[in-house]
């Protein structure tokens, strides 16, 4: 129940963030989508023992987070909610890969722990990039970007309609769930048969709603196409954003700048 309320409020909060205003919010959604994908591909393309070259990539989410004025604590909470799968699979690495790869003083660190740390780092980087994309763009604009980038229109329409009715139906399901828990004191009412009839009731209401929506759309001249009438224009700042980040990300991917920096700092330290 707590998880339901949390994910539902997350959804509307994330939606609200997209309506704020910042230089990042004002960028063309296509530019942001492509940059995010490039970032994820760069991060994921390293070999599994890579750590040092991955860390500098944190510059992208950090700077975007600051420029878009998004609350970092919210992002952290979201990361914690989503971490289970990567954590569960990643934790097997130290079990299966015990060959020692790194000695720090007298401590031996096995390859498994290094690749586990690498997986967790990848997780944090890729998920935060995706969350920043949504929180600074908004779902409608993202769908518009997808349509302009060539996604088939039935799919884009489906995304838009799904998102529109998500909030309505989630509220309805929460009402059902709450009514059940208030009558069952948390114990009965969880059986498969009860849940099946609850779900079927929800489904019937959903189908009726679909029929009403269809009639309403037909009254307004719906012909199977949803037209998106928002102009998208690539401006100077968009070009700057895309080319700048492309250069930085490819640079970080191709040249591991960390050892050089480490050497420079190491030379300054008195040891």
């Amino acid at each position, binding site marked *: 129940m707590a998880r*339901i309320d949390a994910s539902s409020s*997350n959804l509307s909060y994330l939606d609200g963030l997209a309506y704020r205003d910042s230089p990042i919010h004002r960028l063309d959604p296509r530019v942001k989508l492509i940059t995010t994908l490039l970032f994820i*591909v760069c991060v*994921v393309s390293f*070999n*599994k*023992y890579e750590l*040092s070259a991955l*860390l*500098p990539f*944190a*510059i992208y989410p950090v*700077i975007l987070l*600051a420029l878009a004025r998004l609350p970092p604590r919210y992002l952290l909470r979201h990361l914690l909610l989503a971490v289970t*799968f*990567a954590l569960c699979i990643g934790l*097997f*690495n130290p079990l299966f890969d015990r060959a020692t*790869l*790194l*000695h720090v003083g007298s401590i031996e660190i096995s390859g498994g722990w*290094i690749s586990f740390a690498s*997986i967790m780092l*990848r997780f944090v980087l*890729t*998920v935060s990039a*995706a969350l920043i994309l949504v929180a600074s763009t908004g779902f409608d604009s993202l769908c518009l970007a997808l349509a302009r980038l060539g996604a088939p229109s*039935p*799919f884009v329409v*489906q*995304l838009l*309609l*799904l998102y*529109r*009715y*998500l909030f309505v*139906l*989630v509220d309805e*399901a929460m009402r*059902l769930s709450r009514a059940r828990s208030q009558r069952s004191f948390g114990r009965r009412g969880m059986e*498969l048969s009860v849940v099946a*009839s*609850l779900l*079927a009731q*929800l*489904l*019937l209401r959903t*189908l009726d*709603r*679909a029929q009403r*929506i*269809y009639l309403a759309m037909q009254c307004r001249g*719906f012909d*199977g196409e949803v037209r998106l009438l928002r102009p998208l224009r690539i401006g100077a700042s968009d070009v700057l954003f895309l080319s700048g980040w492309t250069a930085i990300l490819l640079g970080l991917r191709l040249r591991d700048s*960390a*050892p050089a*920096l*480490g050497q420079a700092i*190491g*030379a300054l330290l008195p040891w």
Partner: protein
Amino acid sequence: MHMADALISPLVGGVMWAASAGITVYSASKLKAGGDDRIVPLMGVLGAFIFAAQMINFSIPGTGSSGHLGGGMLLSILLGPYAAFLTLASVLTVQALFFADGGLLALGCNIFNLAFFPCFVAYPLIYRPIAGTQPTGKRVVAGSLVAAIVGLQLGAAAVVLETSLAGISELPFGTFLLLMLPIHLAIGIVEGLLTAAVVSFVGSARPDILTVAASSRQPARHGGGRLLAGLLLLSALTGGLFSWFASPQHDGLEWAIFHSTGRETLPTPVTDAHSLAAALQDRTALLPDYGFRQAAESGDAAAAGNVAGTGEETGKAWPDVNAGTSVSGLLGATISMLLAGLLGFILLRLRQRP
């Protein structure tokens, strides 16, 4: 069940993206050709229904845990394969974007594993032959039970295969498979029973809905055949690509081979094709192997000596340790991350001031 970006490689992600995008385009064109625009709002609302239904959880009999509906089979039964595929793909997209369930690059894998198998394999090949067009109670139960189990087993096997091919996780192929399949057998049984119960309920309350769905939206036979042929071609192509590109880190497959033949690799027949492939692989390797494994196997002692030496010698010359993550690398990376954080902090402050 949702794969994460952190566990796949760009090649696996890219190929699965291409496959899922191809099926999406195909389904969309099929849907457009169907010309029934009643289905447009129905798909939208049913996609939202899947989300909503996942919020009503139930206790799994015999265990203390609770589960929720996945919905792939239910959508296929209600909408037919093409519309169900698009609806599930949209659900997975929203989950990836808003709940970080799976990632943007892994979206292709997730759509393929969780939408393709129930819609285009389990529904037409298992559910429909068993349940038929005029479903009675028992046939619906049997059909959705078997179809849900098979769909989820295929999806789980695909997760294992993709994870192993990506080579990020150390989980051996066989162990991972033995871990995933029983779990998803249990999930599949529950999913099938729930689907059957919901379908039966709808069938008794509003039988018109099911008969409409069964009659008007069944897949065209030859169209399905062409899709299948295309996918076979794609998978053959994919297999070829994978074996060329991603072989140095195939721990999972190597493990399976090691245990089934007692050797680390299969004996390679020396032919022109193989040496060509090997040369091509050397030439085009997307992920050049850093000296990590080699350092661990051959020069482990030397590398250890080098790193230990850094502590004792003064830091005038940081030795070039041939273990990808050297101490200086980590130090530099940490510092660059701190710099990034500082930059972000300054930017935040500057923006808040005016």
